């Protein structure tokens, strides 16, 4: 059980990092990588939401995974899980940690409703076997975001410096940089189409 959890978590942090392997959540990463506190804040939010929602996704997949129209209904059901978790967590934070609520309320929806979170549930559903696998992929996606976020954060000043042509400064050069990091990571696992 622990081995299944650990292998799923390690895979999704390094070899199947959702940013480098599947480009999930790149727009959020580029936004977050400007400040260290943002990288940490987004990582905490992602870890929390992907880990907890993967438990509910596991239950849902187990109960209805074999249904004929499950592939069509899954996104709406996963969004419902994420929405319920988001709302209940936000109410709890607002009730018990009022100062924290004031700090996070402006960007918390960006942390929760993005393709990295929804994508993590689909990756868990495709690759995770049993609850430990789902949990491992859920937590690993969040921690993988931290790895990618930190790598982008340390390169951020140079990527936005005058060394880079004006048209490429900001998003274009960051996307190319993520592509080069992804290429380096592919060297460990070999070429494979991302789907």
């Amino acid at each position: 059980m622990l081995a299944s959890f650990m292998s799923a978590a390690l895979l999704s942090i390094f070899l199947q990092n959702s940013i480098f392997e599947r480009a999930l959540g790149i727009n959020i990463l580029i936004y977050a990588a400007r400040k260290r506190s943002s990288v940490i804040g987004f990582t905490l939010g992602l870890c929390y939401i992907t880990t907890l929602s993967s438990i509910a996704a596991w239950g849902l997949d187990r109960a209805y995974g074999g249904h004929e129209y499950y592939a069509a209904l899954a996104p709406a059901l996963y969004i419902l899980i994420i929405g319920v978790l988001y709302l209940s967590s936000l109410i709890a934070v607002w009730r018990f940690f009022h100062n924290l609520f004031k700090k996070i309320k402006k960007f918390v929806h960006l942390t929760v409703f993005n393709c990295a979170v929804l994508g993590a549930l689909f990756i868990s559903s495709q690759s995770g076997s049993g609850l430990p696998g789902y949990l491992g992929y859920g937590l690993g996606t969040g921690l993988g975001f931290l790895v990618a976020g930190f790598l982008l954060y340390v390169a951020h000043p140079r990527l936005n410096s005058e060394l880079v042509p004006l048209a490429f400064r900001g998003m274009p050069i960051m996307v190319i940089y993520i592509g080069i990091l992804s290429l380096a990571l592919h060297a460990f696992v070999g070429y494979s189409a991302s789907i």
Partner: protein
Amino acid sequence: MEKNKQRLSDGLVRQNIVLMSGIAITPVAACATDFEKSLSLSLGFTIIAFFSVLLCRFIPKRIVYTIRVIIYALIAGLVYIPAYFALNAVFGEAATAELGLYLPILAVNPLILTKTETRFCLRPPHLMTIELLGYIVGFDIVCILVGTLRDIMVNGRVGWMNLNAGFYIPAFETTFGGLIITGAAAGMCRAAYNSHKRKRTEKAEKEKQRQEFIKEVIQ
């Protein structure tokens, strides 16, 4: 009429969601690996984004954004259902399955969740529709262009048409290939746009100087 053109071109070029703002870069970089896939991805995006934003407009503003954003995402998740069946009918189940998780994640696209709030809902319905179409067509064009380019470089063909290009770069089928191509395309698009903008400003300044000169001569 001129303003409508400008609104349309806003989403097409100036605020293109793939090349300029990068908010919808993920599906293009990772999934538009050939012409057919890019075509089905574009159709999926068109259906999901268009109908979701139109329906989201009916959500009352009295509801706080914290809850509205959940409703927006849920609406997009529900619009995904007919979109999924439409894609199955048009391209076949196998082609839709090839899109993998990149089709369902379109439901949480920032165009639906953020732009609806900050842009589309602030406009009257007809202007909103024009702007929305601009954004969607902007995505579709970039998606199909990237897919076509990768199809040529990876398979030496465009869809069913064999080009016998003579060179093949299989690495462009991967995510890193997609990221590098899309990033480079974004940089070039920005450079072209900046150059066009600079030229237009220079032309306007020259015209202004010419008008002033004419005025002085007349006086």
